[in-house]
C-alpha cells in the first residue's frame, strides 16, 4: 500500500468536488490508480487523458510509489 496525493484540475476538480486528496492505494501503476478512482468517482468522459507524477508527464504504466504526487490531465486548451 502506498500513501499518495492526487490533485484535480478543471473538469475533474469540479466533478470530484475538491482540488486534491491524500489516498492509501494498492494500485501499482498510475493506470490502475486511475481505474480505482474512476470506480469511486465515475469520472466524466473527456477524451484521452494524460498523467503526471511528481510534476512530470509519465505513461500509464508508471509505478505508484509512496509519497508520489499524481495529477490526471484532461485535454488541455491553452491560448
Amino acid at each position, binding site marked *: 500500500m502506498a500513501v499518495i496525493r492526487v490533485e484535480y484540475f478543471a*473538469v475533474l476538480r469540479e466533478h470530484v468536488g475538491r482540488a486534491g486528496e491524500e489516498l492509501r492505494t494498492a494500485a501499482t501503476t498510475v493506470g490502475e490508480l486511475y481505474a480505482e478512482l474512476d470506480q469511486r468517482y465515475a469520472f466524466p468522459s473527456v477524451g*484521452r487523458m494524460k498523467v*503526471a507524477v511528481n510534476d*512530470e508527464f509519465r505513461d*500509464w504504466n508508471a509505478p505508484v510509489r509512496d509519497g508520489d504526487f499524481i*495529477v490526471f*490531465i484532461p*485535454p488541455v486548451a491553452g491560448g
Partner: protein
Amino acid sequence: MSHFAFSRDPFTPDRFRDEVVDPVAGGYASFEGWVRNHNEGRGVVRLEYEGYEALGIKEGNRVVEEALARFPIAKAHCVHRLGLLDIGDLAVWVGVTAAHRDAAFAACRYIIDEVKTRVPIWKKEHYAAGDSGWINCEVSSSDAPSGPVRP
C-alpha cells in the same frame, strides 16, 4: 530563468520586453491570443483559465527551449494568463527576436502551437446563455471513451 510564465493578473507584453530585447536582433515576431466574444457559434461573456502551474512552467519552458534549439533565434518568451478574463483580454503572448524574420516567425508559430497542445492549461467558457463548459473536455456520447488508453 524560465522562458515561460503564468500571470494571475492582466499584463501587457511590454512588461516582458526585457525577456526578448537583444541588440543583435533586428526582428521581433509576436503572437497574442485575445478573448473573443464568440466560439463555435455561441456568444461568450467571460473566460476562466486554470493551470497546473508546476508542470505548466516546466513544459512551457521546454517548448521555448526547443524553439531556441531548432531555429536561429536570439530570445523567446511566453506568458499565459490564469484566472477570470473578460472579452478582449490578453490570454497568451509569445515574443521572439531574431536576426532574420524567417526564423522569428517560424519559432513564434512553433511556440504557440506547442503551448496550446502540451501545456496543462484548461479553459472554461461562460456563455451568454448562462451555461459554461470546459473546452475540449465536454464530449458527446459518440466520442471516444475517457481515461487512459492501455498499451
